[in-house]
């Protein structure tokens, strides 16, 4: 004769009040959802930011003097309201002993009437065909290749830029306002960085087309052994330029994000506490409603420890059930969370903002199980202490 396991008894006890059990599970699921999404965002954002920064290939950037946040944005995503600096600065920086290499850049923006329904901005990044690829850890091509000459009328499209403009290698591309055509010689693979949306041209070509001999930024690769702080201070002595180190940018952005994160952590903590209270309330109510039955179980031979275990397992089933639903919801809605969070943040890296992996799922399930264990202690203790005599008295006391 097969005996019922204590898990089966606990599970079937929860089926008695299905709606109540379900609502409790949903409470836990919400807390787990918030927890997974939050930690997933934390990991995803940092990983994407690191990827964006690593992909730039340089550790420092010199821009014309202005707002540091604008400079950071310019460096990471491109921007308007451009300020210029003299080309000779690149040569003088390159001469510094701490420098491994520099790459001058010129960004230009024009209004493209054919973009979208009512037109939009089209940005071009002029890069040095020789030094720019050297900075990059990788520059993978989906089709074609890099520029053939330093002043060639050629363009290399990022993956998304090519999709958006519907261009292939060999096509001609007309630069709006300037009415100059360049030939598409390469299309990059998708990298998940801002390069995907960028149209690259040789810097001399951009200077020629737009009639500007200056630069918007200079990327600097510093030697490993160099003292970054001392070098940064040295660069500040250059007139009318601003130095942005990538660690500084990263710290600035992560500080901004951390502030929001602390708030969301507080909310998550409150959600967890509310869920815990919900679990305690549900299980305690269930115990009080089943006092007589618990008394019968004790008269049948169940020890206090058995009753404690039974009620504790009920609590853990509720919490693990909620945890599984919550983590599944977080996985299913990761993309939506990504879009929503992107709408709220002043700057978002180009990669995925929410990174949920098996480790995070297991950690969350561990947390909700711990919640279950903690929440179950009081109701289980209360149930275990019940004396059969106090609970199973007949309706009519003789």
């Amino acid at each position: 004769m097969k005996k019922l396991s204590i898990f089966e008894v606990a599970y079937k006890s929860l089926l008695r009040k299905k709606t109540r059990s379900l609502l409790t599970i949903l409470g836990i699921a919400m807390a787990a959802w918030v927890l997974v999404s939050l930690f997933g965002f934390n990991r995803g954002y940092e990983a994407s930011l690191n990827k964006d920064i690593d992909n730039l290939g340089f550790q420092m950037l010199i821009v014309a003097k202005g707002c540091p946040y604008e400079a950071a944005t310019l460096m990471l995503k491109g921007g308007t309201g451009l300020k210029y600096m003299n080309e000779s600065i690149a040569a003088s920086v390159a001469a510094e002993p701490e420098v491994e290499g520099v790459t001058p850049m010129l960004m230009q923006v024009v209004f493209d009437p054919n973009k979208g329904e009512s037109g939009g901005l089209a940005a071009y990044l002029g890069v040095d065909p020789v030094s720019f690829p050297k900075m990059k850890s990788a520059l993978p091509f989906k089709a074609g290749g890099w520029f053939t000459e330093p002043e060639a009328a050629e363009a290399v499209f990022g993956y998304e830029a090519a999709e958006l403009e519907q261009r292939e290698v060999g096509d001609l591309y007309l630069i709006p306002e300037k009415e100059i055509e360049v030939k598409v010689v390469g299309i990059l693979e998708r990298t998940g960085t801002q390069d995907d949306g960028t149209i690259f041209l040789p810097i001399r070509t951009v200077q020629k087309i737009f009639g500007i001999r200056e630069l918007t930024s200079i990327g600097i690769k510093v030697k490993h052994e160099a003292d970054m702080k001392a070098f940064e201070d040295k660069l500040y002595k250059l007139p009318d330029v601003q130095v942005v180190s990538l660690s500084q940018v990263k710290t600035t952005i992560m500080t901004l994000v951390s502030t929001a994160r602390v708030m969301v952590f507080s909310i998550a903590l409150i959600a967890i506490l509310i869920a815990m209270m919900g679990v305690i309330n549900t299980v305690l109510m269930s115990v009080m409603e089943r006092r007589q039955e618990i008394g019968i179980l004790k008269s049948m031979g169940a020890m206090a420890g058995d009753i404690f275990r039974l009620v504790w397992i009920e609590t853990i089933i509720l919490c693990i059930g909620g945890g599984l639903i919550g983590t599944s919801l977080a996985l299913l809605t990761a993309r939506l969370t990504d879009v929503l969070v992107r709408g709220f943040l002043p700057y978002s890296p180009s990669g995925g903002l929410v990174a949920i992996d098996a480790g995070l799922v297991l950690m969350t399930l561990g947390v909700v199980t711990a919640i279950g264990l903690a929440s179950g202690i009081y109701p289980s203790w209360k149930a275990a202490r019940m004396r059969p005599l106090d609970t199973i008295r007949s309706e009519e006391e003789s």
Partner: protein
Amino acid sequence: MSASTVPAIEAQHLRRVYRRGPEEIAAVDDISLTIDRGSFTSIVGPSGSGKTTLINVLGCLDNPSSGTLSLGGRVVFENGQGLSEARLTRIRRDAFGYIFQKFFLVPTLTVLENVVLPFTFFKKPGADEDVFRLLKTLGIDRRADHLPGQLSGGEMQRVAIARALVNKPDILLADEPTGNLDTARSEEIGSILQELNVREGLTVILVTHNLRLAALAQRTIELRDGKIAAA
């Protein structure tokens, strides 16, 4: 004394006193009795006479305030020395099966699952071999897969009896088992208890208001104000 002549229960000068403020109420007042193995004893008396308190003390659901209680010749309580809840549980699961006025079945477990529920916590060796025979004896074998909500009151009480007997107790304690049943179902349950006593040799102690049911027992003890009025 041979094993067969050792009484199932022997109580001497049992008292169970409750306090209500300064007042002391003796629900069981100096009761001495012997319950023989394989006997069927009914306990009757008006409300408040101490029937339930007595059966609770005899069934180790409660500690007496004073007196001595022996089960199968083994002294369990002596001179009002109370036992811990864990000790009481161990004694209960070895010796007793209980049925009450209410059936206390788990509504989400089937009849069979309710009957074998005690095995989840404690199983006497070989206790599980006769479960289907027990269901058949009690006439609920065809209802094994039904939920309690699909049963009549009489059937639910039979399930409760099966659950009480599944671990092969020496003594079945029945506290107003027909209190929730109509006359026909009450007589059915009475017959079942009598049959279990006669055919299986089970010691049965029945607390009831129902004199027709009490008359099925070989011996009737009448209580009044916590004392034995007639035996």
